[in-house]
């Protein structure tokens, strides 16, 4: 793009990266079980899931929206996969395509309601999250689908070059996202929509289409994450996705995705995921009471959002200084 934006992003991203490395060192020093091959393998796998979950949120945050139904979409994709594999007996590829199709359809429904009715993204996705979750439990009656072919678990469990396959998959996805938002017209138009919807609209951008597309992308990532969970667990569980909402916001926000829209960084998302997984993993290793986990997560999000505001504050101070310099 250009040097100054790069500098700006770098400053933001390097802060996140430094924080991640510090936490990493901290846990390496204070616990014995952290820096083991087994633990690191597990961490990198969980990290991959967190990044996928965060991606499904970040792509709608970018256009100034949100998606509270990613957990519902993920669960729906999960049990679609399980149902097709166990009860219908279709090949894996067909199950995956159908599950992704469901995710895209759910995202399209959200996007349609937000842009065409039009309704507020919060209300729409809050409502559809109940609809999707209701469908999940209605269809599965609360039971997991456990008759999943062994071959289906390949991606979720096996390693490549010492790291989980899904970790590599996650890196590829991040690279694709980076390319889209950095270099393509559609990506820039989505950023502009989030930056200032009215100005984007009057500059000839079909903002409704951008918002619709972002929601479809969000549904796609949520469904993909759900399918990967099936592969990871070897079973399709209706409870998949119950904690995604909080994770998605936490990782996306820690990763520097602006809540006001217009900003996304792939590197930030990666390190946001790293911070998140380290804190969760570290809490277990230091034998903190795991029943408090939700409270920790909530606090981390608050902290990250405050940092976002503090950055905002400082950028205003900088702006003021620049303004007076220009005078």
């Amino acid at each position, binding site marked *: *793009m*250009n*040097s*100054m*934006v790069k500098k700006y992003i770098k400053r933001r991203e390097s802060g996140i990266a430094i924080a991640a490395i510090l936490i990493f060192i901290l846990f390496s020093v204070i616990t014995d079980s952290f820096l083991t091959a087994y633990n690191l393998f597990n961490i990198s796998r969980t990290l991959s899931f967190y990044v996928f979950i965060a991606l499904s949120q970040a792509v709608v945050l970018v256009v100034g929206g949100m998606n509270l139904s990613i957990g519902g979409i993920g669960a729906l994709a999960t049990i679609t996969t399980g149902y097709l594999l166990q009860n219908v007996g279709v090949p894996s590829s067909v199950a995956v395509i159908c599950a992704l199709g469901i995710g895209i359809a759910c995202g399209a429904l959200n996007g349609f309601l937000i842009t065409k009715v039009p309704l507020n993204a919060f209300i729409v996705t809050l409502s559809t999250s109940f609809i999707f979750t209701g469908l999940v439990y209605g269809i599965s009656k609360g039971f997991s689908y456990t008759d999943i072919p062994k071959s289906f678990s390949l991606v979720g469990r096996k390693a490549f070059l010492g790291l989980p396959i899904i970790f590599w998959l996650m890196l590829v996805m991040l690279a694709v996202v980076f390319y889209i938002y950095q*270099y*393509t*017209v*559609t990506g*820039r*138009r989505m*950023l*502009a929509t989030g*930056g*200032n919807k*009215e*100005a*984007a*609209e*009057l*500059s*000839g*951008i*079909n903002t409704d289409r951008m918002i619709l597309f972002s929601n479809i992308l969000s549904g796609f990532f949520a469904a993909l994450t759900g399918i990967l969970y099936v592969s990871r667990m070897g079973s399709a569980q209706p409870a998949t996705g119950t904690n995604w909402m909080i994770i998605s916001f936490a990782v996306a926000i820690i990763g520097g995705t602006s809540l006001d829209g*217009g*900003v996304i960084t792939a590197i930030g998302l990666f390190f946001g995921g790293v911070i998140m997984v380290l804190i969760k993993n570290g809490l277990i290793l230091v034998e903190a009471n795991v029943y408090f986990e939700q409270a920790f997560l909530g606090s981390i999000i608050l902290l990250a959002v405050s940092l976002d505001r503090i950055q905002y504050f400082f950028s205003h101070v900088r*702006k*003021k*200084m*620049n*303004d*007076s*310099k*220009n*005078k």
Partner: protein
Amino acid sequence: MLELQQIGKSFPGVRALDGINLQFRPGEIHALLGENGAGKSTMIKVVSGIYPEYDGEFFVNGDKMTLKSYQDALDHGISVVNQEIQIIPESSVAENIVMDKLSNFKKKSGRVDWKAINAFAGKYLDMVELDIDPNTPIGPLSAAQKQLIQIAKSLSCDSKILILDEPTSSVTRHEAATLFSIMRKLKDQGVTLIFVSHKLEEIFEVCDLVTVIRDGRWVGTDLVGNLDREKIIEMMIGRKCSNEYLGNLNKIGEDIVLEAKGITKESEIHDASFELHRGEILGFYGLVGAGRTELAKILIGNSRADSGTISVEGKEVEIHSVSEAIYEHGIGYVSENRKEEGLILDFDVEQNIGITIWNELKHRFSRKIDDVAIRKEEQRHVDKLQIKITGLDQMVKNLSGGNQQKVSIAKWLAADCDILIIDEPTVGVDVGAKEYIHQLIWDLAKVQNKSIILISSDLPEMIKLARRILVFKEHEIVGELDDIHTRESLCEDQISRRIGEFLV
């Protein structure tokens, strides 16, 4: 009397005000002039308590002031009427007036005493000659009416020193006249008035004294009678300004590029018809909300008309979206609202200008935008418009108003539209940049033979640029002036009077 002694104010890295000595006397309308960034706003913020820390001191009627907040200033009888109108749109007129002293209007039961509030507000509405029910919601009122309500609010605080910071920036000359008569009335009552405006003709109309500041320093103070337009501009920008008269446009042929017939949209515009010729500058004049911008937004496909037809280059077209308007019909729209609708403030200059040309400069297969080509094209426009930036990577929010407006225009030059609708191009832009933008619009029509619709409520700007003027009133085109091309003989007052006749 407000007296400033050696007032100075520094921000990190810059001296915004330096050694200002000034006196503002009661019963006097004192104009405070200077380019954007000259220090006017800083000075106003110092004397109204918004910047509690500064160098030097100031006195009101001989008492040294140490104000900690704006509320503190109000309590000392100093109030500011801002260019950005601070109101709560959902609340009633009366509520907006008494907002800061609502606790004075409590019944014994603790409930709000609406009768007393309305009576109180009504008294001050009468003072500013506004004939509206204090109970009506303030939101739908016109910009001028809101401005007057703000003044009523200041009066209700019993202000002895009233600072009017660009109160006329979004109202027409005819509305401003009401404001001026109220200012004169207040002057007779012994109020000290400080008036900031970019419209110089207003200064001559209403002010007694003029003070000019530049780069944070005092340049001069004089009676308005001793000054003329050229002299004031010279004081403001530190050099002589070029001639006002721009010459004649090309001979306009029969070549009609845009034609609208009977455009109607409920409560926005009724039965609007006009023709736009190639190489012409056509003016849309009228109040904010009279239907000018509403019609423009229909022409660019941002909103849909209930009925009526639009023809481009002689062919009847239906414009469904802004992107169709730009890329298929070559119609662009420079918004009146550069901060809300024209620019993405958090993005850099490159992205703000490039937004209209990304699509043309992308690789066919990789879909990658050709950054090198984009930057080259953008730099060309930045140079041509003399936009002062540190580089294409500078954030737009860090630019001055005039430069922001130039970026907003550069975006449309890059899009290379044949028809440009330019809405209020010089609101909040200082004299130097204003002249430059005028020259630019003129050249677009004269040199590049583009067809331009100029929407403005700034009459001198309209007369300077437009070849024909359509007058809008209450969602209709009520008149047309098509004989103002004999520019040598143009007389502003005459044209103003004729427009006034349409508006009655």
